[in-house]
């Protein structure tokens, strides 16, 4: 019998999401942080560990009035917050701090900020962006035609990713896009970067989110239902140059991160009740399902198109509507974590009945990085 050692005791998103022109990016971090503190009955001076990605962790500490004994500013893109959950858990286990606040805020739409969230890559600039793929829709999508040819992934299957996730978004009052869509709607939406059309691409939003972690032992003293981490999660890097991906049909970082998380948790795929896979674009859930091992190589598109991930399906996936329909600030990973926490607390508007085990997997920096964590309602297994 293993006992849980770390729990998420506080979780909240920013008060408003989507268009939040009245707040700066730093202000979005703080708004979400204060909401998470309120959620679990803490004050800023109860926090001794602070972590954030894509933003200076020192500014967040000072803005919130926190003097930490541990901090982490790992910034590898949208999965940074998933990475930071496992880093924070390791720090708490090691005794470096007792109570960690992880914050995210991003003024992706209103652009009330003075920096971009990810470090520029020297070689990406010198050898890739000079050819025009400056922004995610024309860069993150580059491998997909190869995968379509090699693995039989179809445009209709990619469109179904967006259709199914919109079904989930309909449950969520806070989701940006909730009206039902069809495959035809997706395939006739505005062309962005062939073969990707607008409805296969994420939203561009303002928002924030924050999590508070502590030891499982202390978690019992909090008013919230603890959400436990199972195992140590996983993370990996393939790198910022999209052309240098070993395979265009599979992400090495996904495979390494996912395997580490599953091995550490000691779980099988059949045990997973709920799954979040960061979806900046419609192809990512397909790569995620395959690279995490839920389906075989080349089977991810058909699995989604057959309805297995939709409401009522055997593997509920991206139950908030994902980056395609819920919100996407730029570094969406925090919102995948928030939905998994809601599911484990049993309070998601798109609640999966009886869900006890959730896997959260994210991508960062356009196939550059990946991270995976496993959450559970159970304090032992």
């Amino acid at each position, binding site marked *: 019998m293993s006992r849980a050692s770390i729990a998420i005791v506080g979780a909240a998103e920013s008060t408003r999401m989507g268009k939040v022109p009245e707040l700066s990016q730093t202000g979005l971090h703080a708004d979400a942080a204060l909401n998470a503190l309120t959620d679990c009955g803490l004050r800023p001076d109860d926090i001794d560990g602070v972590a954030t990605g894509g933003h200076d962790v020192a500014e967040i500490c000072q803005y919130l009035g926190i003097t930490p004994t541990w901090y982490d500013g790992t910034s590898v893109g949208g999965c940074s917050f998933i990475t930071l959950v496992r880093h924070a858990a390791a720090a708490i286990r090691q005794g470096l701090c007792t109570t960690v606040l992880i914050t995210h805020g991003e003024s992706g739409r209103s652009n009330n900020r003075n920096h971009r969230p990810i470090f520029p890559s020297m070689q990406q600039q010198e050898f890739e962006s000079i050819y025009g*793929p400056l922004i995610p829709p024309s860069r993150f999508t580059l491998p997909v035609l190869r995968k379509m040819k090699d693995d039989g992934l179809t445009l209709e299957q990619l469109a179904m990713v967006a259709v199914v996730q919109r079904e989930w978004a309909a449950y969520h009052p806070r989701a940006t896009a909730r009206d039902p869509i069809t495959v035809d709607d997706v395939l006739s939406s505005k062309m962005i970067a062939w073969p990707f059309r607008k409805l296969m691409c994420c939203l561009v939003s303002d928002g924030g989110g924050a999590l508070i972690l502590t030891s499982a032992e202390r978690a019992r003293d909090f008013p919230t239902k603890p959400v436990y981490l199972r195992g140590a999660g996983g993370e990996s890097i393939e790198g910022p140059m999209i052309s*240098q991906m070993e395979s265009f049909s599979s992400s090495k970082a996904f495979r390494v991160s996912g395997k580490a998380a599953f091995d550490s948790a000691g779980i099988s795929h059949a045990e997973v009740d709920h799954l979040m896979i960061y979806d900046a674009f419609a192809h990512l859930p397909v790569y995620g399902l395959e690279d995490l091992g839920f389906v075989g190589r080349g089977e991810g598109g058909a699995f989604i198109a057959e309805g297995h991930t939709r409401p009522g399906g055997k593997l509920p996936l991206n139950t908030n509507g994902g980056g395609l329909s819920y919100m996407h600030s730029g570094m969406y990973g925090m919102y995948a974590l928030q939905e998994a926490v809601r599911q484990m607390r049993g309070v998601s508007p798109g609640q999966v009945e009886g869900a006890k085990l959730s896997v959260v997997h994210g991508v960062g920096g356009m196939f550059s990085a990946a991270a995976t964590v496993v959450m559970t309602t159970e304090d032992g297994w």
Partner: protein
Amino acid sequence: MNQRQIPTIHPETRFYWDGARQGRLLLNSCPACDKAYFPPRPFCPTCGSRDVTVIEASGKGRLYSYVISHLPAPGYEPPFTVAVVQLEEGVKMVTNIVDCPAEPELLVLDMALEVTFESRGDVTVPQFRPAGGGT
């Protein structure tokens, strides 16, 4: 503002851009691994050896993957093709597909490509077009 981006050239990559200016596509290669690699750096990313050489690529490759971008980019008139070419030497690199309309029917995966060169001010940038001089 309407100019295509100029690469920021670093000491370790100077040879690549000097080669391009002479109409040659130069790659680093590791004799121990018998393998070319990209982008350039003064050691082999497979074995770590600093004993690496510069080779001239044949300039032939195949269309590995692409998108047709309808988004603005400095100096580009959408739609334009952003592609990955796999060279005969095995390495993959980003390129545009020039001398070919940006239409899916004309851009067939695995079609043969050949290197050509584009001037951007003082810098020459390798580009690829359909083999045989384009359409």
